[in-house]
């Protein structure tokens, strides 16, 4: 009915972007198929080396109209290869959003027809993986100045996972308390989820000092 973007045109746009991005040293891009329930979606998935990530990001922003940084995910792989002990996954998007034009003082809303979206107005998803080598202080180039939306995402990634971002202005704890000990990042895999020492009220509703069945076990 033309109310949504068709998967075929999205695939063509993804292939065009892959062809352009593969030219950069250290970048290896392909079109991957993801599914949303029953609908197929075509996503640009790329692996970038830590050195080429910043170049790729600048190129995506300035030449391919990738205007939205959706999410930054940090992953700790303590049992992975020495070259991929840490991973940062960037979910970027091309939204095609433009400021509405102003004609004689009247703003005309921009209504993109999904079935006719082409070129830079074709919405697209990108997933960029950056693998980092074994290190106690992993870090990768910040893209805070390209997409301001990455600012708090990067803060969160450092706060919870401990991956630092070179060139990030104003890095600080965002979700954990400000007085959290230095070097404590709970999503690193050496930290396990566990019951604390206290007995919760509902574990002892009868008052017989009963403990949960798995007391003392690391969960």
């Amino acid at each position, binding site marked *: 009915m033309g109310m949504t973007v068709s998967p075929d045109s999205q695939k063509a746009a993804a292939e065009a972007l892959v062809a352009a991005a593969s030219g950069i040293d250290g970048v290896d891009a392909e079109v991957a198929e993801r599914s949303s329930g029953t609908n197929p979606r075509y996503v640009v998935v790329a692996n970038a080396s830590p050195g080429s990530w910043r170049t790729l990001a600048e190129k995506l922003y300035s030449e391919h109209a990738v205007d939205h940084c959706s999410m930054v995910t940090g992953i700790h792989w303590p049992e992975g290869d020495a070259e991929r002990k840490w991973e940062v996954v960037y979910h970027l998007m091309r939204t095609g959003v433009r400021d509405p034009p102003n004609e004689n003082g009247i*703003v005309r*809303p921009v209504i993109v027809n999904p079935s006719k979206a082409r070129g830079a107005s074709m919405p697209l998803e990108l997933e960029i993986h950056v693998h980092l080598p074994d290190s106690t202080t992993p870090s990768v180039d910040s893209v805070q100045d390209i997409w301001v939306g990455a600012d708090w995402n990067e803060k969160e990634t450092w706060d919870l996972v401990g991956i630092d971002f070179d060139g990030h202005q104003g890095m600080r704890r965002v979700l954990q308390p400000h007085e959290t000990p230095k070097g404590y990042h709970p999503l690193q895999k050496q930290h396990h989820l566990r019951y604390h020492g206290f007995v919760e009220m509902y574990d002892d509703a009868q008052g017989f000092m009963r403990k949960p069945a798995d007391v003392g076990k690391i969960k």
Partner: protein
Amino acid sequence: MAEMWISMGPQHPMTHGLWTLKVKVDGETVVDTEPDLGYIHRGVEKICESRDFTQITTYCDRLCYASANTWSHAYIYAAEDLLEVEVPERAEYIRLVAIELQRVASHLMWLGAYGPDIGNLSVMVWCLREREMMMDLLQELGGSRMHYNFPRIGGVKRDLPYGFAQRARAKLKLFLNRIQEYEALFDESTVFLVRSQGVGYAKPEEMVNHGVTGPNLRAGGVNYDIRWAHPYSVYSELDWAPPVERSSIKGADCYDRYRVRVEEMRVSASLVLQALDKMPGGADTYHEPEDPMILAKAPSRAPEGTTGAHHFEDSRGESMFYIAGGGEGRGKQPYRVSIRSPMFITIPYAAKCMIGYKVADIPAIMGSFDPCIGETDR
């Protein structure tokens, strides 16, 4: 006058939750802001790493207490991408009904809370009255009042109960009439207009660069919506278009953000009505739970190296899940679950929007972005 920092929150009516907005003021004018979040950080991402894929749904429900259904669906779509499950079409229609009813309920909760923010107390009671109708309908689907745990990997928990379609049509018809009452209450209230018009301007390109999406973006005069840009469910089968506001030259103000949400409730109600009419098998047929018409079989393990991701149009913007498989129990649990919260990204931007306005405008600007701290802090 000397500039000084003041703390609004963590206990402040403006915050709609528990967080602090540090405001630097010069007399009555805001010159700088710094949000401070994390007061109700529960570590959901860490908890998910030691839970089975089916158990995580309940945690995702509790990410946002005003919009539980959209969050559990966002997770379910990412998990289905990870586990490669094909969903029956009827289940997709039922999900759409649940998601859009929840969107209406969430916007009503926002509208009800926004009234008191800017000095219109009676509107809260009016909005909660209609929200109750939506919650009754959702309760019929999920069984509980706020956290439904309704979707399953591969479908939905239950089919529409007997008579649900009839009740939903009657309630939505009544609701569509009553939207006009809110518009009368707000648009004809001088207090509301004076406090919401001309404050908190935001331009679309800037918003996208700052990561702000959803109704806040559409208020600026662009029709970007994940539901058509990266379609999921059965939005491609229905006749709809996201509402867009005609903003002013300076961008969208608080009034535009209010208008776009009211229009969005109309669109959501129309989507539910269409889905009930078009549902394969008809909305009045009932299938037992676990019938293949509403629930497909799903594997319980995801091997290492598999990933699932899904962008989802939440009531507050773009929410997203990224799941890496291959955790404990030979992939029975995820290795890493990452959650994008729209408000976590929007709150810093909303705080920047306040600079240059008066201290009294802060509740009006912050409230218009629809903050929900449950999902922000995770």
